[in-house]
């Protein structure tokens, strides 16, 4: 799939004929209606989380199961995001700066996790790493635990967030071409120096952009993780799984308090994303989640 990567043209002339006030009330209504619709769940989360007071809100966040879910989510993101970062850099660098046979196949492969439902990627891991699975007996023999443990959760997260960073960087690096790198190399720079001093600074904002979107998804992923985690309280529950369990136990304050963490994560992600767009003045890459 190709993304719309065209930057915004801000200078758009007036193309309408109706009076100004009609136009602005149209715009106002459209904005108001949709913003309300989009923000309602956020309002519900914060209102219900704080409804019984700040004390209960914080109590719900520091109880042991919640703390364990938070730390597991942080661990999963701390492993999967850097790995995807390295992969994204390598893949986009190779795709943008080299001409080689099989390039389009590689691009398709990077996009593959977009086509596979997260639940199915989780299912695949269960079929392979589960006790009854393909590698199950071998893993048991060697006392390696992947499913219903941190490695499985990390694997599922990596699978789902695999294309995020590469997809941001490929169009950006393609736009920048190879001239600067070639100049650096002709001036005697080594490959690593060229990468560190030319390529990396040129894509730093795009990279950050990809990382925050990747991170938001890594921390919020439910489907894939839910299948491989086994929902063991205090052990293999991530934040999204914990929210769902609390809600089903009618612990609404707890569920919404923990959900408020994901809501805040979304707000921070949006703020950083807007800041990057404002700093760089262009819209980067594609925006699939």
């Amino acid at each position, binding site marked *: *799939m190709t993304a*719309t990567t*065209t930057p*915004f*043209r*801000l*200078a*758009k002339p007036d*193309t309408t*004929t109706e009076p100004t006030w009609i*136009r602005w009330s149209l*715009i106002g209504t*459209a*904005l108001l209606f*949709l913003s309300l619709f989009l923000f*309602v769940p*956020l309002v*519900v989360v914060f209102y*219900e989380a704080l409804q019984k007071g700040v004390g209960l809100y914080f109590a719900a966040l520091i109880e042991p199961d919640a703390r364990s879910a938070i730390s597991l989510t942080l661990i999963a993101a701390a492993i999967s995001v850097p790995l995807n970062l390295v992969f994204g850099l*390598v*893949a986009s660098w*190779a795709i943008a700066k*080299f001409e080689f*046979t*099989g390039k389009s196949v590689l691009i398709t492969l990077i996009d*593959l996790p977009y*086509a*596979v*439902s*997260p639940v*199915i990627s989780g299912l*695949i891991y269960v*079929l392979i790493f*589960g006790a009854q*699975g393909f590698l199950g007996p071998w893993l048991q023999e060697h006392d390696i635990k992947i499913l219903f443990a941190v490695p499985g959760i990390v*694997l599922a997260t990596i699978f789902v967030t*695999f294309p995020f960073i590469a997809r941001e960087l490929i169009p950006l690096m393609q736009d920048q071409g190879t001239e600067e790198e070639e100049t650096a190399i002709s001036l005697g720079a080594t490959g690593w120096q060229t990468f560190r001093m030319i390529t990396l600074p040129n894509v730093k904002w795009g990279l950050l952009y990809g990382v925050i*979107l990747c991170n*938001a998804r890594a921390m*919020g992923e*439910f*489907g894939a993780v*839910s*299948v491989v985690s086994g929902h063991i309280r205090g052990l293999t529950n991530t*934040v*999204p*799984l914990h*929210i*769902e369990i609390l*809600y089903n136990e009618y612990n609404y304050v707890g569920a919404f308090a923990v*959900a408020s963490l*994901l*809501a805040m*994560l*979304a707000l921070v992600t949006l703020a950083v994303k807007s800041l990057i*767009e*404002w700093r760089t003045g262009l*819209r980067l890459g594609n*925006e699939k*989640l």
Partner: protein
Amino acid sequence: MKSSDTTTAWLFLAPALLLLGIFVLWPMAYLVWLGCTDGSLRDPFFVGTANYERLFTSPRFWEVLINTVVFTFGTVVPSVALALLVAVVLNRALLFRGIIRAVYFLPTVISLVAAGVSFRWLFHPQGWINALFGLSGTDWLASPTWAMPVLILVALWKQIGFNVVIFLAGLGTVPASRYEAAQLDGANDWQQFWYITLPGIRPTLVFAIVTTVIFAFRSFEPVYVMTGGGPVNRTNILVYYIYQQAFGLFNFGLSAAAAVVLLVGVLLVTAVQLWVAGSDQQD
């Protein structure tokens, strides 16, 4: 750079590709193979197309397919049409573009579970919706009539802002001179939209439709969190069915076959997009 770079590039990519192969490609091939077995994981027995025959002769599976189509249409048509309308209107507001883009992108970055429990609470018998409209005790998510529309509403919530952002980007690429020429010729707003905007954003439109179809095909969280496929199977869509077959009934062969059906569906939709993009390039 030259084609001799091929070796360098692939060597450089080798470690990443190895991981991709082990954790993405091989598992997917294994899934396809498992769909042709009896699904016993320790010692799978090859059964050919038996799982597919079982699927396509099962009334329950057809019900699931129909639900998936309803859910997909219900999500794609309004989210694309409304998003286009909103984007055309907003395209005139230059001042707030940054804020607009941030606001509309919110559902894309928030976890669907956080949103799912919120919507479940909104439509709870004692929830905000009933309170707002003065209805007492209507259980929307337990109603065979209303459960699916509520799920579609959640999908719309997730996708509409993304489509608005995509359309705003697409609208920015239509040359302003075309509108000026049309205005000189006396074209009204509707004619300008029909003859200039719509053809001008055709690739964006196709992209938005395809992305939304794939989003709908892959949807799982709203069903899992809000309805569990019920009531009476009304909201059981394909991914949830695959999940049920695997983890509720341990029919791994059938589940894998259904997963392959889903994958083929997604690939077909992607092929349509590539075909349209290819014919656009030829024009």
